[in-house]
């Protein structure tokens, strides 16, 4: 068996397609990875997303590979073999699984190495990572066994279609709730303070293994002498699928669970220039200095106003409801620029028209709010997606604010606090005569 397995590893057509799949998986995983931070929870999310995205196509590729005996007219050779028919396909299947497992190792290593360059935080989330490995393997089994059952090229689209149907359940949100909750393709993403739900992932792992066993048993059903054991195996595998799906449905498809507050470690960072203190979860350490500098500047600008603050803290379950200005530190680990995103989000609690709409009768209301937001973020561009009939005038206002000396800027904020809060802006507020 080892010799034939070695032969399959050397000669399988997957040796051409798996490197391409690996590149695609790495692209999906990198795209799903946080740009500035690296956590094992995020790596698990990235791996699951890559596995879920590629699984249907892995099934199709493996179906094509499994049709090799038919494509190469080797049925007579197989038909006169002294080995049981299902065993003849085993080295080919194992070869495919080893190639795919190797591809998984490469992508995990690549994302982990990339993470290590940023500062990888946390410990591996074993169950989601295991599921990200099992998904492509199970779909490989699906492809091989569909080919074994249908014995024609139709197995390629047929096995791919199964995964695409799961796409509809998971990503398009179609179908009954129970089916979506039991779907093995993952929607897992653990926000701050949350981790993978072990019961849910145990369920989907049992379900995935059960599905692979079920496909294998159905594939063997085609061979008459093995029908009885295959049928029994299919029933047992079906029971596994039902048990796993039951666990996932019992959790209502919740892939995450809140971490106990006591287990969360917060770090304190102080901006050396303005002495503002920031409290945040440990994994933000790579961007802590940027955050301290950005919030230090905002703190300095509001220092002479009633909104002055010296401390701002991340709250795990934070939303904007009932939040006082500069009370909560909002952090999005997936932001392209965590510090910039944090200021923009924090200003939602300050600039009233972001919540309540523009002030009545003020012509420059939204333009002024956008100018102030960009300025406080330290940006020389207007917020993305912001449209104004006179962008030249609005950009001039922003430039004027940026050119204010530090002392004048602080005085300007103190003098215009009501407008900042209420968005009651006129162009004259930005230095125009």
């Amino acid at each position, binding site marked *: *068996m*080892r*010799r*034939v397995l070695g*032969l399959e590893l050397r*000669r399988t057509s997957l040796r051409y397609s798996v490197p391409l799949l690996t590149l695609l998986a790495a692209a999906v995983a990198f795209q799903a990875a946080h740009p500035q931070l690296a956590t094992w929870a995020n790596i698990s999310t990235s791996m699951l997303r890559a596995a879920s995205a590629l699984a249907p196509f892995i099934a199709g590729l493996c179906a094509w590979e499994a049709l*090799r*005996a038919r494509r*190469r*007219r*080797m*049925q*007579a*050779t*197989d*038909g*006169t*073999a*002294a*080995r*049981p028919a299902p065993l*003849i396909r085993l080295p080919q299947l194992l070869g495919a699984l080893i190639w795919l497992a190797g591809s998984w190792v490469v992508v995990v290593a690549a994302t982990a190495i990339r993470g290590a360059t940023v500062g990888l935080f946390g410990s591996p989330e074993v169950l989601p990572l295991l599921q990200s490995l099992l998904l492509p393997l199970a779909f490989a089994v699906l492809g091989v066994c569909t080919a074994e059952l249908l014995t024609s090229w139709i197995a390629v689209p047929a096995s791919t279609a199964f995964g695409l149907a799961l796409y509809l359940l998971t990503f398009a949100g179609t179908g009954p709730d129970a089916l979506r909750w039991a779907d093995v393709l993952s929607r897992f993403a653990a926000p701050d303070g949350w981790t993978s739900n072990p019961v849910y992932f145990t369920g989907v792992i049992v379900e995935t293994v059960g599905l692979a066993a079920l496909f294998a048993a159905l594939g063997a059903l085609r061979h008459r*002498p093995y029908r009885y054991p295959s049928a029994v195996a299919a029933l047992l595998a079906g029971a596994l699928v039902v048990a796993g799906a039951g666990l996932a449905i019992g959790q209502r498809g919740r892939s995450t669970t809140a971490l106990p507050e006591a287990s969360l470690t917060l770090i304190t960072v102080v901006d050396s220039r303005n002495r503002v203190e920031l409290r945040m979860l440990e994994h933000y350490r790579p961007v802590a200095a940027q955050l301290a500098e950005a919030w230090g500047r905002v703190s300095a600008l509001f220092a002479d106003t009633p909104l002055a603050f010296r401390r701002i803290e991340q709250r795990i379950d934070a939303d904007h409801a009932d939040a006082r200005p500069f009370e909560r530190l909002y952090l999005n680990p997936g932001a392209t620029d965590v510090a910039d995103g944090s200021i923009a989000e924090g200003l939602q609690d300050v600039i009233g028209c972001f919540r309540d709409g523009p002030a009545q009768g003020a012509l420059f209301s939204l333009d002024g709010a956008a100018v102030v937001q960009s300025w406080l973020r330290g940006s020389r561009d207007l917020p993305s997606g912001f449209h104004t009939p006179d962008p030249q005038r609005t950009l001039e206002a922003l430039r004027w604010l940026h050119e204010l000396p530090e002392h004048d800027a602080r005085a300007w904020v103190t003098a215009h606090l009501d407008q900042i809060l209420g968005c009651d802006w006129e162009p004259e507020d930005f230095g125009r005569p």
Partner: protein
Amino acid sequence: MTMAAPHAAAPVEADSIVVRYGRSSTPAVSELSFTLTQGINALVGRNGAGKSTVMNAVVTLQAIQSGRMRVLDAELPLAEGPRRELMRQLGYLPQALGYVPSFTVTEFVEYAAWLKRVPSAAVPRAAAEAIAAVGLSDRATSKLGKLSGGMLRRAGIAMAIAHDPRLLVLDEPTAGLDPEQRIRFRATLREVAAERCVLISSHLIEDVHAVADRVHILEGGRLAFSGSVEQMRAHATDDAEGDSELERAYTALVARARARDDSA
């Protein structure tokens, strides 16, 4: 490679077998009885005469509808376990040899040996000996996709003999070979047929003349003749078509069988 021990009983015996494809009312092989002995047995007939059907029945790829057939002491049909045991003792080269072009000759033969459950430790030696037996040792590491038609047929024979079978079934082994390749192939065949029962099918009379110990002529799914080459030669008539005595014997025997079928 060790040769199989001589077998006392006839390796293959068929008694009034009928083979029908699907729901066809006309059987591909009808009431056919024959015996294969040690040495080279040639199955001769035109295209569609039933040669491949008989071969597929012998290697159990095609079920017989009625009649009795014994292959290497085993009465067909067989349950899966005994059938697999029979397959260990049987080598088969189909008319259209299927292969993976990226496999080397050695890989191809080793894979075939694995299919025949040759013990793992014995596989490299068995493959090397089979490849040497067909004269392909110098191309052992060549990819199958790079071989000529003649070399491919020889690789096919190596694949069929790698597990040292007692019964070797070769369907049209000389098809597609040029004259030089055919001559070399016959020599190879004589080598591998020593102390083994070989069944080859062919529609080329000169192949039969060169290698066969016994000839079985099929016409319309029925047996037109069974005997030695010399016995066949005795049926030649002056008015029969053919360039050689053996060809005239063949056409005379086939014409007689057709006349018999027509009158029936």
